[in-house]
């Protein structure tokens, strides 16, 4: 009797757990994860009555790869880099997303025309466009640098430089600063001479460079006065400049921007709810909601029509701070995921070897 009772209680518990259907979203944590929690997870959960939680990872892509390969998927939606969304999709680790099912823009434009080109891929829908930019301290340079080339000009703008320790976006930045047009960057970088040219440009500031790895380090180096200017993720500089009132100025010339994508891992426990979440999050309102917390651009035309107000202070207009703002796009490069899936390992080995020389 007692045994039956225990067993039935356990079974009831299991049934309850299966019914609860809590949707788990995995993202990068920090200010970025917080923006997605406030902009997507909480409102979606409130609107549908489905419990949803956000979990952090220092990079969701390898985490979901490990889960799918081990056959133990606990995440329904993950926010991954664009190149990872494509790579994992090619490896059959993601659920395809039906592009036709994505909601039309707030103004009625069909999703296919509303999203920026490339924002919707076979298994991923872009949630924002973020950018690699460089920033300087306005109290150090009243007449600040204006172009990518200025970053490499140690005579005109003396002081240490901060650069992300990795090949991606750094090599492109060096070529842009060396006068390569954005349209030609990946053609040039695809040749051995082009790679040499990028490293030669980096050689000119190598002795003066401080390398950072975590996104939070860049604004910290700038705040500590360790560097006169540094490359950074634009959202981090925005958070420090607008959020905390630091005298930082972003230089948009030579920015290298890319999409971030929501994906559904293959075998996600709540696949249908996950698809519903993505439709909500990448709707015009969903994208605008996220962009009101962090200065990454919404990848839909309809989401960029009306001004977005920063939720942190309730008054700053996000427009000029977004990578997608037309004024910021004059000399900008869209990251080529095709190039980096092919050459990531190769160029990073070269980069590490160059660093330790």
């Amino acid at each position, binding site marked *: 009797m007692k045994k039956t009772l225990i067993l039935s209680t356990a079974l009831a518990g299991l049934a309850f757990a299966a019914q609860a259907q809590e949707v788990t979203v995995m993202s990068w944590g920090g200010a970025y994860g917080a923006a997605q929690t406030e902009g997507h997870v909480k409102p979606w959960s409130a609107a549908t009555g489905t419990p949803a939680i956000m979990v952090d990872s220092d990079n969701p892509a390898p985490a979901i790869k490990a889960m799918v390969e081990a056959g133990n998927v606990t995440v329904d939606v993950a926010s991954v880099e664009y190149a990872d969304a494509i790579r994992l999709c090619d490896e059959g680790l993601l659920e395809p997303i039906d592009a036709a099912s994505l909601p039309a823009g707030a103004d009625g434009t069909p999703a296919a025309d509303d999203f920026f080109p490339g924002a919707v891929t076979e298994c991923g829908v872009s949630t924002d466009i973020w950018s690699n930019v460089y920033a300087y301290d306005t109290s150090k340079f009243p007449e600040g640098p204006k172009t990518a080339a200025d970053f490499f000009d140690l005579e005109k703008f003396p002081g240490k430089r901060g650069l992300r320790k990795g090949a991606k976006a750094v090599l492109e930045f060096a070529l842009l600063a060396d006068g390569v047009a954005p349209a030609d960057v990946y053609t040039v970088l695809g040749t051995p001479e082009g790679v040499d040219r990028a490293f030669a440009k980096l050689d000119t500031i190598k002795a003066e460079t401080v390398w950072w790895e975590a996104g939070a380090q860049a604004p910290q180096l700038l705040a500590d006065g360790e560097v006169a200017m540094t490359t950074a993720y634009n959202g981090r500089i925005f958070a420090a400049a607008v959020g905390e009132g630091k005298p930082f100025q972003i230089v948009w010339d030579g920015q290298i921007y890319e999409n971030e994508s929501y994906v559904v891992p293959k075998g996600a426990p709540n696949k249908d709810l996950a698809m519903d979440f993505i439709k909500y999050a990448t709707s015009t309102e969903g994208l605008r909601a996220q962009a009101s917390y962090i200065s990454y651009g919404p990848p839909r035309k309809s989401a960029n029509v009306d001004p977005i107000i920063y939720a942190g202070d309730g008054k700053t207009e996000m427009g000029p701070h977004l990578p997608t703002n037309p004024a910021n796009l004059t000399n900008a490069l869209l990251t080529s995921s095709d190039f980096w899936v092919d050459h990531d*390992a190769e160029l990073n080995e070269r980069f590490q070897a160059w660093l330790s020389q």
Partner: protein
Amino acid sequence: MAEAATELLKTADGRPLKAALAEAQSRAKRRAFLLVLPLLVFVLLTFLVPIGYMLKRSVEHDGFAASAPALDAWFEANPGFDPANPPEAAYAALVQDLARMQTEKTTGIAGTRINYTVPGTISLFKKGAREAGALVPPFKDAMLAIDADWGKPALWRGMAAASSRYTTEFYKVASDMKLTEDGWARGGDKERIYLYLFFKTFLISGLITVICLLLAFPISHLLATLPMAKSSLLMILVLLPFWTSLLVRTTSWIALLQEQGIVNDLLVGLGLIGDDGRLSMMYNMTGTIVAMTHVLLPFMILPLYSVMRVIPPSYARAARSLGATSWTTFRRVYLPQTLPGIAAGSLLVFILAVGYYITPALVGGADGQLISNLISFHMTKANWSLAAAIAAMLLAAILVLYWLYDRLIGIDRLKLG
């Protein structure tokens, strides 16, 4: 007397004493084994199994082999084919496999596997797979028309090697070898990195071990000889950083040593250096060594202390009373008795330093990278086989050092307390 000895000794209930003793002993042994069983299972599950799995990963990758059966069969049937000019049959198998990859969505996995040794392959595979279904013979010309790279000897060498699920290629990559058009060769000057980093990792770890020993020896001696009240206080000073989070300690060093940091500010304030002559002590090798030495110091102090505490002071006094100078006393009487502690501390610090990751990542800058940072890089890029191969090489190197240590010093002389 003689009769009594031949008669078997018996217990009170009449059993032979020998048998009763053996049974009691085996019962005690079983009980002792049951006590350590949880630990054994734990070690097996959390340590040996993952290491075994890692070693397997380093030689196994079926990303290509499992998704290209036609090519697998062809490569097996034609082991001596000319990679510079594969025949039409090979291209026919290739087209068949590419079409299959397209329907089964395995292009990415197969392309990624080949991309490890032949960069640029993923997009080549994707492009080829998209069009493979519509191709008509002759397939060789059709494939070369899509992309001339399909005729590259390195690509065919790479595919032939990857058609077996077991491979040593990851170890070759981890030894700075590159797959060229003519087969495996030593990488160019600008590309070699792994062996150099292995060498550097061991050098730095050795240096940190020596610095730790030099710093820890006098402190441990003080700890062991001071009166209880004072040594307890000193012990807390040693242990307090030990209890503090590693990240906190590492970032504190950044705050102290960076160019606009406290130490530089102090030196400038005292007029010892000019404002433009601030020392670079962070984001380089100096920073790595300072921060790692600090983090690892307790691992040297504690074993040394526990050994020194039990060395009777009378030995040193006896040596002095017999006319030895203080240096001779130290060298011939005190130091040899601390050797087990030195050995234990050095081994601990060295092995921990070799695998150190987060501190060099944060304070290492350009030249403070260690091999573990590259393992981490390949882990995050999901190239687990290469990460496993580098890790296995690190493990092998440590085992060799451990063996050497056992031969030279003897592992039984190790004493942790």
